């Protein structure tokens, strides 16, 4: 075979021989989620726990019927600590890292067919049926002085007042001034006035609406 005889088909064959991954595994694919697997277990290389069943789609998001439903496809997250599997019917992007057929991974969720309201400089966690936020040692919502720090400041202020109430009418061996009813009342008044500053912030916690997305 000389260069003149090389057809496009020959070239394709030669390139695929050199770069086998090019035969489909380098392309990101759209897919639609068919099932989300739930239940706690350790995510292992051969047996992912974060996994979904999905169906490949064509470039126009129509279902690609040449492919059966692919089961137990690994699901990647945007962060180690934020776990948010897509719902059934959500469109996602699938890729094969290292161009290998054993590495299929759902790498992103698309917002197709969803009501969205993007806001600049804003991370939205919204429209989820349940939102669970937990931390192992500290959970801080807010910034600087305006933190909701699990009521720490209120607790310490109330503890001071409780101590003073306990000490009411008791005598001190060292002759120090003892708390009187007046001084306790003054402290309570101060706490009352600064209560809002101490524990309130711009964080609003409440229940959203359960209305359908569209």
């Amino acid at each position, binding site marked *: 075979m000389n260069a003149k005889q090389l057809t496009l088909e020959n070239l394709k064959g030669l390139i*695929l021989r050199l770069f*086998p991954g090019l*035969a489909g595994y380098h392309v990101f694919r759209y897919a639609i989620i068919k099932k989300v697997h739930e239940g706690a277990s350790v995510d292992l290389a051969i047996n992912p726990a974060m996994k979904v069943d999905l169906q*490949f789609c064509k470039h126009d998001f129509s279902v690609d019927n040449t492919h059966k439903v692919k*089961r*137990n496809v690994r699901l990647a997250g945007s962060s180690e600590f934020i776990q948010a599997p897509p719902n059934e019917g959500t469109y996602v992007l699938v890729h094969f890292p290292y161009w*290998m057929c054993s590495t*299929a991974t759902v790498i992103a969720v698309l917002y197709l067919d969803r009501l969205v309201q993007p806001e600049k400089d804003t991370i939205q966690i919204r429209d989820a049926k349940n939102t669970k936020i937990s931390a192992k040692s500290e959970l801080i919502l807010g910034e600087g002085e305006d933190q909701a720090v699990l009521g720490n400041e209120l607790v310490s202020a109330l503890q001071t007042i409780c101590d003073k109430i306990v000490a009411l009418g008791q005598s001190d061996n060292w002759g120090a001034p003892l708390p009187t009813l007046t001084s306790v009342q003054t402290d309570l008044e101060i706490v009352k006035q600064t209560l809002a500053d101490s524990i309130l912030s711009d964080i609003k916690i409440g229940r959203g609406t359960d209305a359908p997305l569209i």
Partner: protein
Amino acid sequence: MTDHPYVYCRLETRDKIYEVTDYQIHQERQRPTLAKMTLKEPIEKGINVILQVGYLNTVYRITFLKTLSCSQIAKETFDVVALEPVRQILDVEFTEQIRGVNLESSLKSIAATVGFSLKTQGAPLLTKPQNMMFIGSIRNALDQVWQVFELDQARWAMMLLKQEFHLLTAGKFIASPVEIPMDYFKQEFEGGVETNIVPMFRPYTPVIWNGTEEIIDIARTDSKTRSMFITFADKAL
């Protein structure tokens, strides 16, 4: 050279046998066999024939070929090109998801798609189970299996006549290597030797040359020079 047995070549169809006067056959590991032949009579284009090579009172059925073209050159002289239909098999669509499979099971699924059975020759290769998602053709699936299981020496071979798919874990047939006889030897070239025609010298066959074992990678047969050009497999590849 004159005392070397005459090697003749024939094409066998369902109802006829065609004598081949001249032939050039290119056989290579993991590649379709290509034959350029001269026949005394025309043969239909696009039919399956069996390539026979006769040597020392034995007829070897080499493989299936599909005739690609037949053109008349002179009276009673027809040039025929035929190719082993390996490529058609490799191009068969193969979209299959198989989970937790090892090398052998993966290949079994691939072979079963075209109705072949899997035979393994050589020491079994220890592979970790993998979740495979094949989305292309058989050729692509084979390339992926080789890449995912990090196969180095291993080769596949298709035996079309037996409908068998072979996994040769050492890249060769498991047989004791045959020494290339010195009286068959013609000359040496880079990466191989030229010998008299011996049908048993096929790709994947282990032979001994210069005291070392080699695997035949390419075997080109030319009836005009009554020669066989044998290229050895590069072990570094």
